[in-house]
């Protein structure tokens, strides 16, 4: 068990492409940290550098206080779970799990005991003599975990370990990964592109984009206080709504109407040197059916009327989708998020909006509805550089 420190770590390939730029992360002993970002953001490269499977071009990597840049993977004492599981097909489950111990020349009785223990934790005892080809996806995944935990390494590295499982099993395994990590208390670095996994699993989340760290923080903090447009759009499902707005005399003019600046927003904006044109960010849950909001609360927000395009009932809530007239918010960050989500080519002019409203709402698809939102929850971003102007750091 040990802390892992990435000190200005950079990865540049021989052809000049920079995969990871100046990454600074301090991972505490026993912490569960998530690297998250769209494909190509450098999260896997970062993990591979910690593992020792890729060289570090510049900067320093310390595990347990020691510089390990030049050490081979086998001398770093860390275990890794691969996306594809990478089980040895010619070995049984038992042999797979014993392999790291055999290489470490551990004596037979200890190997036997450790494999038994790990198998018990992972509920694999009855499968020990089977070959990986005869196991289900979830079992293979557990064997891969078993191979990692069996030698009690300083840290676990997990490279999208759940992405090959089907949706239901993934949710189940997510909980067991979390429980296992708590139980073992081993420092864990977990890579995923799934923001739900990032939100639910980690003690802290590192959001990456284009090889650079965007923000590091606890999941809830990232959700409430995204440092920039990218983090705001990436974390949260459904994603935050972005509406272009302009700041005029302490009022935000937007397609949703004029939004008064509350004291909180005003004080945060003061030091931020906000430009005139901004992007207003609103989480779907900060909307509500206006008829269900009582009058005292109602005055703290803005009510607008628009036609409901699609209404999805989730049972506990309803998701209402609107399209507003006017320009869509544009910035490099949002374009990248759209490309990652595959929605870049989806036609549709104007601004689209998602609101999570109460299940008791009487809004009807295709008919206008009065929708209220909380003006105090508004986040404002600079469209030029994506910075959150209302960031409370």
């Amino acid at each position, binding site marked *: 068990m040990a802390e892992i420190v990435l000190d200005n770590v950079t990865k540049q390939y021989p052809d000049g492409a920079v995969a990871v730029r100046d990454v600074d992360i301090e991972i505490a002993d026993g912490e569960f940290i998530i690297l998250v970002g769209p494909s190509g953001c450098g999260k896997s490269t970062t993990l591979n550098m910690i593992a020792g499977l890729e060289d570090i071009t510049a900067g320093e990597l310390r595990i347990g206080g020691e510089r390990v840049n030049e050490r081979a*993977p086998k001398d770093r004492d860390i275990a890794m779970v691969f996306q594809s599981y990478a089980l040895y097909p010619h070995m049984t489950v038992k042999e797979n799990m014993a*392999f*790291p111990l055999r290489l470490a020349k551990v004596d037979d009785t200890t190997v036997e005991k450790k494999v038994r223990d790990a198998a018990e934790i992972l509920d694999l005892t009855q499968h020990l003599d089977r070959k990986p080809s005869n196991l289900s996806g979830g079992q293979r995944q557990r064997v891969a975990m078993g191979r990692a935990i069996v030698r009690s390494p300083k840290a676990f590295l997990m490279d999208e370990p759940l992405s*090959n499982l089907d949706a239901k099993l993934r949710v189940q395994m997510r909980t067991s990964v979390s429980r296992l990590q708590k139980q073992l208390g081993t420092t864990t670095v977990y890579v995923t592109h799934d923001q739900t996994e990032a939100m639910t699993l980690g003690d802290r989340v590192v959001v990456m984009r284009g090889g650079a760290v965007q923000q590091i923080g606890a999941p809830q903090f990232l959700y409430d206080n995204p440092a920039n447009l990218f983090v705001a759009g990436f974390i949260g499902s459904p994603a935050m709504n972005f509406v272009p707005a302009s700041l005029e005399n302490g009022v935000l003019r937007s397609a949703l109407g004029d939004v008064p600046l509350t004291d909180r927003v005003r004080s945060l904006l003061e030091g931020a040197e906000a430009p005139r044109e901004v992007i207003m960010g609103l989480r779907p849950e900060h909307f509500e059916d206006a008829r269900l909001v009582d009058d005292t609360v109602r005055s703290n927000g803005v009510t607008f009327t628009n036609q409901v395009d699609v209404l999805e009932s989730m049972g506990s809530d309803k998701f209402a989708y609107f399209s507003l007239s006017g320009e869509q918010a544009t910035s490099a960050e949002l374009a990248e998020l759209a490309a990652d989500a595959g929605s870049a080519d989806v036609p549709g002019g104007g601004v689209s909006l998602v609101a999570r409203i109460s299940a008791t709402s009487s809004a009807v698809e295709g008919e206008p509805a009065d929708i209220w939102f909380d003006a105090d929850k508004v986040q404002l971003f600079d469209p030029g550089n994506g910075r959150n102007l209302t960031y409370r750091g």
Partner: protein
Amino acid sequence: MAGIGGAVTTGRKARWTVLNVLVVVYALFPVLWIVSLSFKTKETLGDGNFIPREWTFDNYKTIFSTTEFVRALVNSIGIALIATAVAVVFGTMAAYAIARLDFPGKRLLIGVSLLIAMFPQISLVSPLFEIERGLGLFDTWPGLILPYITFALPLAIYTLSAFFREIPWELEKAAKMDGATPGQAFRRVIAPLAAPGVFTTAILVFIFCWNDFLFAISLTSTEASRTVPVALSFFTGSSQFEDPTGSIAAAAVVITIPIILFVLFFQRRIVAGLTSGAVKG
């Protein structure tokens, strides 16, 4: 041919059986014919009967009583085994490098080996003859082993690199993470998985060396290194009026046996889908 879902009707089974028998008979008929010839006596050789009327082992006794054939058999086995071993060892290393590493000149190496594989061998016979005479390799074992390795290597590299490419790269990374040195990773993870490929290649290379006639007849002149296919062509009867057909048939049967044994021995190891279950997808 177990049928999908296991529901194989009798009619379907019968159709398959008939078809299989037809194919096997068609493929094996010439072989059976030569086996039949090898058991016939001199008098009944030309009688056109598929099943010999009089069975005899004389032909076999004759060929094994001559040093000509026995010596050729020893040459054949020795030369083919050595050439196969060397070609497979070098082929494995080269194929692994081609499949896994990026090194300068990789494309050139692949190109050149392809070129060698496509080169008509007959065009090389005269230069090889001259070179080997100049170097004193003519009519020696190395004189045949070297050209065999040269022509077998491209084949070996091609087959093996296809096999190596199928072994997931992540297995090697996993082995590294589990604490293996590159040598251990190769020995304990990659080599066992590549085994079917290695055996397949060994069989192909062995058959190539074993069957070669062109080099063997051009680069040998005495029993010192003459291989069986060539020795066969030099068979004569005990007098010039005697027909060596029976002996040739017996010898042909005998030289088929090592190939059959070789294939049967290694067949068990060529299990398709050995890597299934390693990685998903």
